[in-house]
């Protein structure tokens, strides 16, 4: 597995949730360079090439998009977001909060920490599927992405 070629990083602790998301992306042919990490801790290890990803990838080779859940064990999504946005090497990575939370406080905090978007996962599956499709389409295809080497 070439970690450096990862375009989409999905941070989601709930395996079922992750499966639904990945399935919708695959269906739309957008999961080719997708990598899934199971919690906030692993997300940080991957992004900063530390812990079990030490020496396995170049920190400067940033993904096109990170889909980040908030409510996760050990390290929460907001903490991951803060770490990414406060490191010069990673702060340009677009981060989309993808969460079940409707709490205004969560939305406020996310944007304050530099989130690029905030998406609430709808319970209704049809709407969920549509949302994921749009999300992938927008960030992977439409969005203009900064050059790899800054």
């Amino acid at each position, binding site marked *: 597995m070439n970690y450096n070629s990862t375009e989409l990083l999905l941070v989601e602790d709930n395996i*079922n949730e992750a499966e*639904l998301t990945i399935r919708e992306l695959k269906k739309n042919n957008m999961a080719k360079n997708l990598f899934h990490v199971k919690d906030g801790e692993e997300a940080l290890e991957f992004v900063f090439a530390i812990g079990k990803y030490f020496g396995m990838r170049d920190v400067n080779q940033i993904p096109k998009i990170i889909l980040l859940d908030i409510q996760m064990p050990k390290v929460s999504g907001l903490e991951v977001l803060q770490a990414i946005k406060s490191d010069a090497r990673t702060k340009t990575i677009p981060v989309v909060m993808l*969460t079940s939370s*409707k*709490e205004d406080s969560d939305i406020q905090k996310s944007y304050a920490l530099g989130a690029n978007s905030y998406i609430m*996962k709808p319970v209704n*599956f049809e709407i*969920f*599927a549509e949302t994921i499709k749009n999300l992938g389409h927008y960030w992977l295809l439409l969005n203009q992405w900064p050059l790899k080497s800054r």
Partner: protein
Amino acid sequence: MKKYIRHFNQVILLGLIILAAILFLTYKQSSNTKATSAWVFRTQEVRFKIEQVFISLVDNENYTYNFIITGRREFIEPRQKSRENIYNQIDTLRRLTIYNTAQQSQIDSLLFYTSEKLQFSDTVINVRKEKGLQPAMQLVSSAEWKVYMDHVRNIIEQMQIEESFLLLQRKKASEMAGDQFKRIVFTISILLIVFITIFLIRNWLQDNKQKKIKAKLSESEKDFQLLVSSVKEYAIFLLDKEGCVVSWNSGAKHIKGYTAAEIIGKPINVFYTSKDIQNGEPQKNLQMARLYGHYETEGLRVRKNGSFFYANIVFTALTDDKGRFNGFSKVTKDISETKRVKDELNDNNKKLILSQKLIQESEQRFRNIIEQTINPILILKGEDLKLEMANEPLYKLLNIGKECIGKPVIEILPEMRDQPFQKLLVDVVKNGSTHYGNEQPVSLIRENRERETVYFNFVYLPYRENDNRISGVIVQATDVSAQVAARIKLETIEMNLLIANKELSFHNDEKEKRAVELLIANNQLITSETELNKLNIELEQRVKERTEDIATNEKRFRAVVENNHDIINLFDESLRIIYRSPSASRILGWSNDELSNFDIFTNMHPDDRERTEEVIRETITSPGNPINALFRWLHKCGNYLLLEGTITNLLKDDNVKAFVFNFRDVTERMEVNEKLLASEARYRRLFESAKDGILILNSDTGIIEDVNPYLITMLGYSHAEFLHKELWEIGLFKDIVENKSAFEKLKKDGYSRYDNLPLQTKTHKAFYVEFVSNVYDVDGKQVVQCNIRDITERKKAEQIIIKLNTELEERVLRRTEQLKKTNEELEAFSYSVSHDLRAPLRAIIGFSAILEEDYSSKLDTEARRLTTVIRNNTLKMSNLIDGLISFSRMSRHNLKKTIVNSNEIIQHIIDELEIKNEFGAINWVIHSLSTLKGDFDTIRQVWVNLISNAIKYSRHSTIPRIEIKSYFQNDQVVFLIKDNGAGFNQKYSDKLFKVFQRLHNNEEFEGTGIGLALVEKIVTKHGGKVWAEGIEGKGASFYFSLPVD
């Protein structure tokens, strides 16, 4: 012409400038002429040189010919020489025409053809030498030979023409320059002639004028000499430098007696007295004149016959034309007659002064009399009321000196300007009326610079001259300050009584003391009155003595005495009235005639008769001494006046021969004193019965002057233990007034207050008091009054309240802490509900959907229906969760109240719903709604829920109609939304607003049962109420009311 001469200097200056200009032009012109002639010369030289070149060429040709023909060598050398000449001449020519380019190019051609020609002739010569005559001749006769020569000739001809032309031009220029020069010279000559003429004319005119002036001068000199010699009143003559007489006029002869022949050449000493000569007077006079140019003196002079005359002499030092001193003129006038007249006048003046002095002395006597009275008196005279006369008491009163005499009264008392006082004075002068002013306050600045108010009774009388004309005002003042002070004291005391009623205090001993003081003051007043009476009597005697001597002064004096405020009566031995001052009639009410029939006891109060008789007896035993008396006297109106004064036995005095009664009406003063005593009694009662402790201190020393009974009971010290001790001496006050500085501060501020002060009784029982101190000003003396109130009970109550408050506060804090904790727990709970409960629901729905999608071929209809049921229920659960969360969040929501416009909100909601296309055509009837004060977000939620409800439940109606309006009821604004939808049974209306309670099943109208519960919660939180009315199948009305602020 005159004007021209006047401007002569300017003309000369102009002339000089013109001359300079001409000179400059001349110089320029001459150099110009020089240059043009040089050019002419040069041109002629060029012409000559051209000719020479041609001649040399011809020479050269001749020599060449000669050699060719003859073949003789001797022609070669001259030819060679001519050849050199040619080149030299051409060179010279080139130099001369260096400035003419045309000629230069001609010279180039000339040189070319000449050298060609010469070369060719060289060739011919060589041919002759080598080949003989024949071939050489052939060359000579060839065209070449001729051509060169023709060219040269041509060029030379051209050059000659050019030079001739130039010569002509330059000659012309030179001639012109010469002409110009001539013209300039001519102009110069003309101008010079003009100037010389002007100068000569001017000189001639000046000479003429001088001659005329001289003629006039000599003429006036003659006149003058004639005049001088014929003047008789003045001796006018000249002296030489040494002071000897040089000339003599007829006046001199007339005054001094000498003829001219006798006196000329004699020194002036002869005119002086021997005494003056001894003093060197003549020399001194001359020196003075020499020094100052002019000297005037007066003195005795001697005539020829030795008689004296009084003269006025004027010396003038004379100078000649060049300013050199050369003698004196002397003018003497006999002024003996003038002097005699003057001296006589002086004598008369002296007599006049003497008589004035006599008048002044008599005036002075009168003044002395007036000035001896103790009452201030002044006389103002003239339109501007100048201070004509004043006595010593007045000076003291106004704190002024004698230097004010003669000044207008307004200048002396500027503060009186435009006050009634001034008007009054003017009225006295204009109308001759007499004015009385009683108890007039006069604010005066005393020597110690403090302002003091004194009170006077004033009498303003017209001052009449002998011809009865009014020329001023006599003002007499009587100091009644003591009387007024007594009344003011009463008023002050009354006022203090009022204060005391509020603050509960005053001190009686102090008052009693003060009453004693008051009595003493009154006695003093009486004593001073006695003195006054004495003076009055003396005055009257003096007036009698001087009546005939100085009638005017007597009149003034009488006016003063008779307008005295006091009663002056004289009784004979049998006590019958023989004189009464006009004031008696005024004060007592009885007319003059009535009074004249009274004896001393008529109208006297019967009770006072005996005492007065006693006084009269006393005066008989000590004649001349005024004895004090006080009795009541019936006024014509029927009430008794209290009269106070003195009786003096002057029966033995030849001038008086009577008992002199001098009295003053003191009724009012006595009334004041009575009131004073009454008010004192009121005070005392207050002081004694007050339910506060009262302490009176001397403000200067801090010594306790009095305590009231309540304070004695309160503290347990006896009256004696308090009295005459300094406040800080008593142990119990040590905490209050630790040192004198606190006391000083009290004196400065006039007030101090301790709300909560610990005190100890004599038996060491501690308690708390309120301690209020006030400084009072009583008759200029400051007294400190302290009110002390026991606040032990109040303090206890206060402490209980404080304790309760503290406990309460602690309880509130604890409760708040608990609530905060509960709130936090709730927050965490609802957060996890919103997040964690939703995820599994999404999974259920998601995987059901995948099942349907991926295995649709393997699922039959029933299986597909079942998955749909799963999905629908899961969705419903999701909705329930959302509703629950917003409902629980509502209880934690903090309202931010602003003015909310419901019409705007409603329009916005409808627009949004229309965009989502969630309903069909609805007949909206929205009235203008009242604004309300509330939290915008939640109020919006209320409207969203109510409107969606109305839409939802009226969607089955044929024409859905929704009406929204508001109205006021009591203090409430009521909002109402009414639809024509499904409605509800009124008997279940109380269930409408309960969570999860629904009146319709989900198949009919979907819903969670949270919307209206949320509405209820929001409105209740705003302090309002919700209710609903409905008829099944007809529609429903939902109301909510909010309080109007």
